[in-house]
């Protein structure tokens, strides 16, 4: 599903943000990427959503070779990848329903189809009854679940979650992780970045560790190794 072959990204002369990274993620896999702040986790995800171009190396996602990707095709690539951000990135002047529907509106889906699809996703993330609330009326965990709902409403093959629990207390953080697990169970490949030790240890999923822009650990079902990180 995701293949990175000797990918390097350099922003300035200080050295590469990520260097010769090799990563292969299978379809329907749940992968946790761990690393300290500045290790290169976000850069890696930005390369996958094509917010950044690699300096060198090859990236193939869902059969799409990024080298051959034209700028005008980027929106269509992003429609195949759901993205969740640490700061939620919800539109404050839209309700929960409207925020989720927005992802369907931009692809041109009809109103009737939207009215049919959105409630199902709201139900999936456990926000039934909050449809008409605005983001500022929700807790952090609820806002993040809205963001996940918006990311998965188009049923993408891949969901990228960049520190989705970073701003949440442990209870809400686990609510969000449970939703991600549920999404993964429905067949979506999930890529989660975090430095929450508790989440990594309890999740028991594949863990890829990044330090100074390099992959220094890749374990099929690992805990959080403080020394490696």
């Amino acid at each position: 599903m995701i293949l990175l072959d000797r990918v390097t990204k350099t922003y300035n002369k200080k050295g590469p943000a990520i260097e010769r990274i090799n990563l292969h993620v299978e379809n329907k896999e749940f992968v946790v990427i761990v690393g300290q702040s500045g290790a290169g986790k976000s850069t890696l995800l930005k390369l996958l959503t094509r917010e950044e171009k690699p300096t060198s190396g090859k990236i193939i996602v869902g059969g799409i070779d990024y080298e051959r990707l034209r700028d005008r095709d980027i929106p269509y690539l992003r429609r195949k990848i759901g993205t969740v951000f640490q700061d939620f990135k919800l539109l404050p002047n839209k309700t929960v329903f409207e925020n989720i529907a927005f992802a369907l509106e931009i692809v041109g889906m009809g109103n009737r189809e939207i009215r049919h699809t959105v409630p199902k996703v709201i139900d999936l993330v456990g926000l039934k009854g909050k449809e008409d609330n605005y983001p500022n009326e929700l807790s952090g965990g609820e806002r993040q679940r809205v963001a996940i709902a918006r990311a998965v409403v188009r049923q993408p093959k891949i969901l990228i979650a960049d520190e989705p629990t970073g701003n949440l207390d442990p209870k809400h953080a686990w609510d969000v992780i449970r939703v991600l697990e549920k999404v993964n169970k429905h067949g979506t490949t999930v890529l989660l970045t975090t430095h929450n030790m508790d989440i990594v240890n309890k999740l028991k999923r594949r863990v890829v560790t990044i330090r100074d822009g390099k992959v220094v650990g890749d374990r099929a079902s690992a805990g959080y190794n403080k020394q490696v990180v």
Partner: protein
Amino acid sequence: MRPKYHFYSTVRVLKSGFVNLFRNLWLTIAATAVMLVALTIISLGVVLNVTANNAIDVLSKELKTGVFLNDDVPVEKRNELESALRSLDFVENVDYISPNEAQRRLTENPIIGNDVLQAESIFEGEDFLAASFEVSLSDLSRAQELANLAESEQFNEVVKRVALGKTDTGDQTDAEKAIERAAATERFITISSIISAGTLAAVSIMIIFNTIRMAIYTRRDEISIMKLIGATPNYIRGPFLVEASLYGVIAGILANSIVYTLVYSLGAKVAEAPEFSETYSYFTEPTTITLMLLSSITLGVLIGALSSMLAMERHLKLKHW
């Protein structure tokens, strides 16, 4: 994308552009007002130019050039001259006025009446009873060419003299002056309306540019989210383009309303005059009204679209996705 999806996207872009119009109402009013002034001046410039042009045409046709003939010119010589005059491309019509006809006209003149002696005293030295050709010109500025032909060696024995700018009333100088004044006014209208409309169009482009720039700035978070979740550049840009074009539509309709208020109120007062009657009925025809309205709206939309595209090119760099 399926055609149905294109339809929904287009509808949403239009709706969003319409909503944006009311988000920054004062900026919308300012941008529309400047464009309104520019379009009003452009439309008024067109109306005044057409009016002046038509008036000059009417006056030019009334102003005839007289080619006075010597006494007892043989018919064949006279016909030869007539053919030569008709062969000039700017000559519209040539009428032969016999001495009898000239006398009849003179006696019918309300000022002179039957008093030929009085006429002689008025037109002292003039050839008012000589046979002549009365020539109508389509281009009055070329009257001298006609004079050169008539006074050439070839017609030396036929032509006594040429009077440029002769009218039926014989009031040559005033008519010529009127045409010159009308032509000068037309030139003034053309130049001043081009300068002022151009300046105001540039000002409205700058104001709309700024309005759209501010709209882009206030919506930057929304735009970045739209980009990240897969909106196409057209979907993001569309509402700004629609918003700026709507300024043009509103300004175009208002400008046309102002211009037609003036046409109906002031135009009606001068519509009786022969030099304005044709113009007045032309501008009040439904086809012309529709054409003026559509032109005004189209120009407004073009100014709006150009300004918003400039703003987006500078402040919404969707190329760098």
